């Protein structure tokens, strides 16, 4: 299972490095999103309090939806998803490989987004870098875990571009809320790390639940 997941991850990253299609569109979209919010909300050089955390996560969620759709569109165009499903590997390994690829792409986008949000909204996002990394990685895994499953499910649906956000956002609301609250706490000058720890623990619990459910349902959902 680990070998198959690794092969799929390596293949996805190689394809992406060659085309840079998803990376460019995702990062461009996320940066545009942050800039729009900055133009709308930052008045006379003063950013709204607590705005940065919400805007960071909105940009991640929107960019993530775009990346999820494109990743599976690529497998649909040349019908390679069928070839993956025909391989003798455990089908959940295909899910894990795709999930890791999307998480890697979103983390790359976050590397650009975090300093941009910190700069435009004068937010001390990097004051607790390790905790911020823990929040972002655990939140990204939770969001991508659900998104990867739904994208794979919808790959043959005609209205997949509309259906993906409709299905994805309501289910990932707990992840987004936990991510926003944890990030906001990190931005407080007298923020409590115990609270951040609580939100990260919640995010990790959600990751376990979502990944387990996805691994359990991926094979039957993809068989027909």
């Amino acid at each position, binding site marked *: 299972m680990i*070998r*198959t997941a690794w*092969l799929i991850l390596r*293949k996805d990253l*190689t*394809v992406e490095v*060659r*085309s840079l299609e998803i990376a460019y569109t995702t990062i461009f979209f996320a940066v545009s999103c942050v800039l729009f919010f900055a133009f709308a909300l930052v008045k006379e050089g003063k950013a709204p309090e607590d705005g940065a955390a919400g805007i960071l996560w909105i940009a991640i969620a929107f960019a993530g939806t775009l990346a999820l759709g494109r990743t599976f569109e690529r497998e649909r165009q*040349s*019908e*390679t998803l*069928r*070839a*993956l*499903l*025909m*391989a*003798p*590997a*455990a089908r959940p390994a295909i899910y894990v490989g795709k999930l890791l690829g999307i998480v890697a792409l979103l983390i790359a986008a976050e590397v650009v987004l975090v300093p941009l949000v910190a700069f435009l909204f004068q937010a001390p996002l990097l004051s607790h870098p390790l905790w911020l990394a823990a929040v972002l990685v655990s939140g990204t895994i939770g969001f991508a875990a659900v998104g990867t499953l739904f994208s794979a499910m919808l790959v043959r649906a005609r209205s997949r571009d509309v259906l993906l956000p409709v299905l994805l956002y309501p289910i990932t609301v707990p992840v987004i809320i936990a991510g926003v609250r944890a990030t906001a706490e990190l931005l407080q000058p007298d923020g409590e790390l115990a609270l951040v720890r609580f939100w990260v623990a919640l995010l990790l619990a959600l990751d376990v639940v979502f990944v387990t459910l996805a691994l359990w349902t991926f094979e039957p959902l993809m*068989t*027909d």
Partner: protein
Amino acid sequence: MSIDFHELTAEDVSRHFGRRRALSKISFHARTGSILGLLGPNGAGKSTMIAVLATLLRASGGAVRYGTHTAGAAGAALRARIGILGHDLFLYPELTARENLAFFAGLYGAADAHAAADTALARAGLGDRAHDPISSFSRGMRQRVALERSLIHGPRLVLLDEPFTGLDDASTAALVARLRGLRDEGAIVVLATHDLDLAEGLLDEALFLRDGRMVDAVARPGALRSTYRSIMGRSS
């Protein structure tokens, strides 16, 4: 766990998509070292039958047996013995021919995926284009790579859906020779096509399908086009 089988049996296989019937009670039997043709016009159910045999679709009724095994019970071990070349080629255009073949060899558990890819490229006659991306290949060259992709793990059952599409005469002759070679090596080859001239003299048995039903089955069919006309004319 690895499994093997020496015969393929379809017993009253039906497949419905909602209210639309794509296959209706198809039965046949094929042994190792034979080429079975699924012949019929567009929409006859050939591709659906291939997808069911490939375990990509579940039959709505009836059963497919791979020797004593079924798709539900054998799962991944059975898929390791099946190779499929679909109407789409199942190749990544951004990757080179060697990377594509090595990726699929790895998925099928090859100990040395790159060596397997090099052997497959040599068999396709594309060793000199190994490091070119698939997107730069002609349709015929892509088809040759795709065929080797489907055979890279030495499958017992080889499923081919319209494999002659877009091939020039030389590539067609090479494909026909390759299919005969597979038959001689003991594979069960199932070939879905509506190109009767190219299938002429290649098939050990032909199943004639129309609107999802099996109209007739002919062993060692000769004069395929006139046989086809006569059978389809009778059934309409």
